[in-house]
């Protein structure tokens, strides 16, 4: 329970900072940056696999956050997810735009997935995480792996098909079946 309270308090604190940022408060913006930049940089780094590109993406992300703080809606997303979503989408856009700096390592999807799992085990603090991961575990391995890889590496269908050396239609079919099962499983709680 105390952990939940702590999480709630941290959320409330971060939400309050975002609202101050929405009012143009630079000091709150810096405070928010200090609290969240390591997380958001981690997101960019995971997607882009390159420090310089990730720092550029991080800059873009915080400029967007500064300009769009008013759009934050605490009812629709937790503050850190809202911020991390901006960072993830910014990194994906950068990866796919013209000067593609993508330096994707050749680690296999399987290795990627298992590495992520070990990190995850320390972080299952929320019920939502528990249900999501239980349901991801219930998928066929290839379904789970394409979904996780898409999320963590920011790959499009075309990139996934290329990376896996598998026809696009097959990759789509794995993803869609996996998503359907994931949804059904999560609805069942």
């Amino acid at each position, binding site marked *: 329970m105390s952990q939940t309270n702590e999480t709630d308090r941290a959320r409330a604190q971060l939400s309050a900072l975002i609202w101050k940022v929405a009012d143009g408060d630079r000091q709150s913006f810096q405070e928010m940056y200090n609290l969240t930049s390591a997380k958001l940089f981690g*997101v960019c780094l995971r997607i882009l696999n390159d420090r310089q590109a990730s720092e550029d993406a991080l800059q873009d992300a915080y400029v967007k956050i500064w300009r769009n703080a008013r759009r934050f*809606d605490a009812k629709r997303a937790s503050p850190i997810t*809202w911020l991390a979503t901006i960072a993830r989408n910014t990194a994906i856009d950068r990866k796919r735009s013209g000067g593609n700096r993508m330096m994707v390592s050749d680690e296999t999807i399987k290795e990627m997935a298992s590495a992520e799992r070990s990190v995850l085990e320390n972080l299952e603090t929320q019920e939502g995480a528990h249900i999501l991961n239980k349901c991801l575990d219930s998928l066929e391995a290839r379904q789970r792996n394409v979904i996780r890889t898409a999320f963590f590496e920011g790959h*499009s269908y075309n990139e996934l098909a290329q990376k896996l050396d598998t026809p696009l239609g097959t990759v789509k079919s794995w993803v869609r079946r996996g998503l359907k099962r994931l949804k059904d499983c999560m609805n069942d709680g």
Partner: protein
Amino acid sequence: MVEETTLLKDDEALAAELVLGLLDGDEKAIALRKQLSDPQFAQAVDEWNQRIDPLFQEFQESEPAASVWASIEKRLDNGSSNGVIAQMKRWRTGAIISGALAACLALVIIVGPAPIRSTSDTQSVAVAQLTGDIEGLVLAVSYNPETAKMRVDINGMPETDTAPELWIVGSDGIPRSLGQIGRDGISTMTVPSDHRQLINAAAILQLSMEPPSDIPHAKPTGEPVAIGKITII
């Protein structure tokens, strides 16, 4: 063979694919437009965002170089001057914020040179930018404080049953309608007298999609699809 039960409805699948970032090119553009025009689809996107939300916990933290913060500050400081042009170009070519927030809509407000300028006036330009859900959608607004005329140039708005309506939001946070604007090209309007004082550097402009109406609505019914902070420069 694929059994019926193994498939999501098309829209459900599209929403999930958008959230995961699997779409690119036309497919992504179509999905983002749909998110804007179809509330049911927008809700499906929100729901998928919530489902995968816990995955964000798994990203490991990593400290960026100290110089990043300095660069961000510099960009915010330059945001009110010619740095904006470069940012506009960059945003138009590359960027989309998607998911819960979505997209790339740049809103530029130019408080242009007044046709009759007092001698003490210098040419002032105010710029605001924001990201929205639709790649390539760009809105440029110029406002002449002497005539209270606002000129809106809009490009890249998708076909929807709803109409774009412009709102000014002052420091009280309450959106006040400036009326609906054309879907494409240039519209001009006279800003109502009680809203003119709101057009200053503390205000923002929002664009939302509303049922078509000749009379400005009292308040927006949906999420803004674009927000831009007004900056007088």
